[in-house]
């Protein structure tokens, strides 16, 4: 067994930015997310309660966004591109690092900019494994960066 060897084709994709994705944070989407997670904080689900809170509106739980797919980004298309350049076909989510910089609430319009930050070869219990880190930066309609996320993926 050996570490995965990063091909030249893959190396060329490091640092490449994907076209930005624009999306609106919808109140109903926040409510459904909080319900699916079982987060009972009324700030995320109770419209009336939230209207009287210090934020004056339904706010997203941290981590409501930050997964490229939930921003409408076609993650699988990006991985198809990586696979064409030599990435193994197995794909698992390896982890996440969030840097929450400002709150996100219903009605916000966010721009997500996603890039391949790094690709490394490793050896794991799945065999030779490619470890990819995507960095996503989310900016709101006031031009403030609200969130920076690093997602790690394992191809094996």
């Amino acid at each position, binding site marked *: 067994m050996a570490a995965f060897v990063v091909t030249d084709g893959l190396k060329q994709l490091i640092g490449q930015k994907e076209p930005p994705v624009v999306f609106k944070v919808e109140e109903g*989407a926040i409510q*459904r*997310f909080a*319900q*699916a*997670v*079982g*987060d009972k*904080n*009324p*700030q995320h689900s109770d419209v009336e309660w939230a209207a009287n*809170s*210090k934020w004056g509106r339904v706010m997203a*739980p*941290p*981590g409501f966004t930050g*997964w490229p*797919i*939930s921003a*409408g980004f076609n993650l699988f298309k990006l991985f198809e591109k990586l696979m064409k350049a030599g990435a193994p076909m*197995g794909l*698992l*989510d*390896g*982890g*996440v*690092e*969030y*840097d*929450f910089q400002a709150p996100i609430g219903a009605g916000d319009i966010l721009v997500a900019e996603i890039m391949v930050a790094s690709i490394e070869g490793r050896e794991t219990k799945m065999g030779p494994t490619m470890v990819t880190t995507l960095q996503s930066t989310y900016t709101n309609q006031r031009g403030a960066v609200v969130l920076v996320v690093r997602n*790690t993926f394992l191809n094996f």
Partner: protein
Amino acid sequence: MAKQIYYEDVQVGSEITTLEKIATTRMLVQYAGASGDFNPLHYEEDFAKNLGVGRPIVHGLLKRAWLVNLMTDWIGGDGVLKKLSCRYRGMDYPRKMKTFDDPVDGDTWYCKGKVTKKNDADNTVECEIWVENTKGEKNTTGTATALLPSKSK
């Protein structure tokens, strides 16, 4: 909601109030819809088997969202979650459904954590956090940094 916790209330080693969760196949479908993550790995038996994980597994993202929930419940409305990271070290399997609403018996997950550092300069606390299953396996582990309100300000 729980009472507001203050920076002065916690010490290095203080435990974060445990948050108990279960995951069912139905909840995974609900989470797929809410998050937009429709990877068949989380609901299709053959797909999961062919990928070598046995059967559909709990979304890493759902366990990560539980950890966010652990932290935000603990820090309360006046606390601010600044950073959170986690790694997935193993698979967790959802309970299957017995009726429309109720699952069969199976794993329960306990989201836990403790304070590892206090930073007096900015009233932030650093924490070690994890999700533990009924067998005591910590398949999702991470760290979080949160700002807590002060009693003196």
